[in-house]
């Protein structure tokens, strides 16, 4: 049986990037509404 690949670093990177993009956009909307 083949070994399971050890590539958890890529998984972590993708999850972090997604969180950063979503939180960044949330913050951007919040800032724009506060300025308005």
């Amino acid at each position, binding site marked *: 049986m*083949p070994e*399971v*690949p*050890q*590539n*958890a670093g*890529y*998984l972590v*990177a*993708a*999850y972090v*990037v*997604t*969180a950063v*993009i*979503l*939180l960044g*956009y*949330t913050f951007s*909307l*919040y800032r*724009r*509404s506060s300025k*308005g």
Partner: protein
Amino acid sequence: MSLLHRGRWITLLGLALLAGVYVRALAFTPVERLQGPAQKIYYLHVPAAIWAETAMVLVGLGSIFYLFLKDRRLDRFAAASAEVGTVFAAIVLTTGPIWGKPIWGTWWTWDARLTSTLLLFFLYIGYLLLRGAVRDPALGARYAAVLGICGMCLVPFIHLSVYLFRTLHPQPIILKPSAPSLPGSMLATWLFSLGVFTLLYVGFVTQRYALSLLWEERNGA
């Protein structure tokens, strides 16, 4: 409660549930044997892709009806959907290569699916730039509507590109004519994530729509 606050609460609920998706995907969903942990990128990549494409379809539909009815609410909605679609497209274009590197051995390849998705992202950027570049808001809305309709026409091509061309990108394993080929626990995680991304789309678009309204009221547009 104002529209802006309603959107903010929906977004916060979506973000809280996204944390739940992370916990479920990382701790309670089995690791795929051939791809390893990187397969779990799928739970974010595909829901983001579905909403990046759906957002463009909604931009196109809003644009068509705007051109016929001249109802500013439709244009406001199209602009909001385009901005949120850009965010989801950015997630697709970053998580995809991060998955591709360990599985394909390369970050990027110019195959039909990847290239057409990149084109979708550029169309979103073009749409937003066009709106900002034209001084007359009504004229800008008309030009943007035409671009939005072009973007909508691209979406079926993106979805079918894996059938029409020889691509490295996997074929759909859920959105296909036959039954989904995912084990139950993986499918449940994916459906949970799709629900959360739907909530985030609704929350973001509601907030962005409310911001347009505020801006128009302030500027007397």
